[in-house]
């Protein structure tokens, strides 16, 4: 690939943190592979790099040692980072790969540091969006935010993810524990995501309380995921205790891929009541594994699940409880949701999104 002037072009990615187990890190690695396969030079530059990926990326400030005329930058925008200001200074032709970020309003009163960071992310988006040749959003919801920030050319392409991690061999120890619980009766409801106010795990607890009271007294709720909000987690645990649900609501924290596979394998329903989601990788993981999904319509959720989930407009506990009961007991509905979910997941996990991204990047490079 060359520019209009005929010079070779490298398309490098910049990212705040390159982690092996998060959606953005996986996305960046898969995009790099796709760009290389298309014939570009492509490296990853990051503010922070996980030890396991030390050989996959360089620190962002090392970029000048590798810079060449005609370089194009793709910025994986997820949160506030020094990389944003660095890119603005470099003045490279820029493509924003926008994963969305949780707005400050969701952290107000809980995590002052997160409020500041989210506000800074909004400023950085406003700084970079008008300069971008192209903005790649993961949902129409995110596309709208990109446009509002001043991005002139925007397109929607799903996250490039490795959904096979949840379809692998389940961790035998976790699987055995879940089987033991399952033998006691009651359904297993699953949610995967960081424990933070925007994911609204307290709404899940309320729904579980109503579901147990009205339909299934032995039901369990598994809230899998680490936390970045100590105050919210503390409040959630206190709430669970007050409702007498300490044995029914389980918070195993962040787990391995194999353990996650065990949770999906044991789940009867995947339930998400997040107030804000830019895309929602775990929703797709549930669909991949054939777990019926019930979710609140928030942010980019509807774009992600399409017709592969039961999308509810409200999060009232009684409403959610009734939906859970129906999905758990109505075999016809389960079949319909599972089939549609598997179909939607197949679309999202095909090669098509990566191919589309490379096409769009090529088109943007031609305008640089």
């Amino acid at each position, binding site marked *: 690939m060359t520019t209009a002037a005929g010079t070779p072009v490298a398309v490098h990615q910049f990212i705040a943190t390159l982690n092996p187990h998060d959606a953005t890190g996986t996305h960046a690695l898969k995009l790099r592979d796709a760009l290389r396969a298309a014939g570009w030079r492509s490296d990853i530059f990051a503010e922070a790099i996980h030890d396991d990926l030390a050989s996959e990326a360089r620190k962002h400030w090392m970029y000048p040692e590798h810079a060449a005329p005609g370089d194009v930058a793709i910025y994986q925008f997820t949160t506030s980072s020094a990389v944003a200001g660095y890119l603005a200074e470099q003045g490279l032709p820029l493509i924003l790969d926008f994963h969305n970020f949780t707005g400050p309003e969701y952290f*107000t*009163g*809980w995590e002052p540091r997160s409020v500041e960071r989210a506000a800074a992310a909004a*400023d950085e988006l*406003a*700084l970079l*969006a*008008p300069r971008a040749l192209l903005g790649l959003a993961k949902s129409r919801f995110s596309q709208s935010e990109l*446009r*509002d*920030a*001043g991005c*002139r050319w925007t397109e929607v392409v799903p996250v490039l993810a490795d959904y096979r991690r949840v379809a692998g061999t389940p961790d035998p120890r976790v699987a055995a524990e879940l089987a033991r619980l399952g033998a006691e009766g009651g359904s297993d409801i699953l949610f995967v995501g960081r424990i933070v*106010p925007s994911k609204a795990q*307290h709404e899940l*607890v*309320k729904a579980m*309380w*109503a579901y147990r*009271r*009205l339909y299934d007294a032995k039901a369990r709720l598994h809230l899998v995921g680490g936390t970045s909000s100590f*105050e919210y987690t*503390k*409040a*959630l645990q*206190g*709430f669970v205790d*007050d*409702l007498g649900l300490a044995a029914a609501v389980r918070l195993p924290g962040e787990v391995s891929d194999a353990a996650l596979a065990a949770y999906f394998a044991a789940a009867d329903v995947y339930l998400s009541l997040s107030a804000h989601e830019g895309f929602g990788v775990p929703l797709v993981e549930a669909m991949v594994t054939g777990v019926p999904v019930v979710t609140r319509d928030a942010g980019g959720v509807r774009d992600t699940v399409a*017709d592969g989930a*039961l999308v*509810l407009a409200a999060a*009232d*506990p*009684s*409403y959610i*409880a*009734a*939906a859970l009961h*129906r999905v758990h007991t*109505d*075999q*016809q*509905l389960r*079949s*319909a*949701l599972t*089939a*549609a979910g598997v179909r939607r997941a197949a679309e999202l996990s095909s090669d098509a999104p990566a191919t589309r991204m490379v096409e769009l990047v090529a088109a943007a490079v031609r305008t640089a």
Partner: protein
Amino acid sequence: MAPEDPRAYVEQVMAEIAEEVRLRRTSGDLPPKLERELDELFLAHSPVAGRGGDLGDALRMVDAATFIDPVVPVESERAAGAAVKKGMRSLLLWYVGWLTHQMSQSASAVSRALHIVDDRLGELERRVESQSVPPAGVVEFPALVHAEAWWVGPAVAAAAKAPGRVLHVACGDGWLVRRMVAAGGDAYGVDPRPRLVDSAELGGLDLRAEPVAPHLRAVAPAGLAAVVLSGTVDGMAGTERAQLLAVIGTRLAPGGTLVVHSVTRQAWDSPDAPPEADLAPGRPLRPDTWCSVLEQSGYEAVEHAGPGGDDFLVVAVRSAITSPYEPAER
């Protein structure tokens, strides 16, 4: 077995779920009051500001915490533990009671003071609300604002001089945006009247149904090459107009152009004026006043009078040396 038409079946299920909830609620299985109590129970664990920072909620927490119980619980899992604790409580009760009485008195005084502050703040909010000036809506004179109007050509030409994004405020169905795009401009429109934008034939046009000031605040500093205002500023009160011009000043690039189409007082007061003109909190500025205001804000302004004396155009070019990052209007 999968249903023949899964979408239709899911819709049917949604309706049945809603009906099930309605029946449950009316039967008293899960009354709405119980759901509210769930909310309150969770809020009791959240930091005060997590309740939205409402002073009334914070005071309810203070009230609940004001009373300090001097009677220490004596239950114990160990044999004789309860008796020992009970003995200690009896011995210490006169002292603990004396301390907690004073602490409760102190907390009650603080709580009373906070309630007075809450009442006075509420009264202040009511007074401010009664005196606040509502924001002006779009006041459009159909005879003066249309695709064939005399000022459209000069406005399009002025906006085209500055390379970059051009915003038409109060874009309606996008008639001027369409014209500017046809002239090769990178134009888009914003209008606070969603009905007009929703019914527009977009045909690739970028039109947004949004309030004007929040939209401009979301635009990056120096992100616009030109702004065209029509029907927007005539009915604004002074403060609102000044705030709008301030935010435009930070969003226009140095050397950018501000085009203002306005009506004269004569047209504003004529019987043909739309009813919005009568209801607006402000009145149009004279052409000279516009030029003076804009020149004081760092523009070079030129006035073009309309042929019928009913309207005029002001084309103002922003100084090229002004920093887009000051003042910090965000």
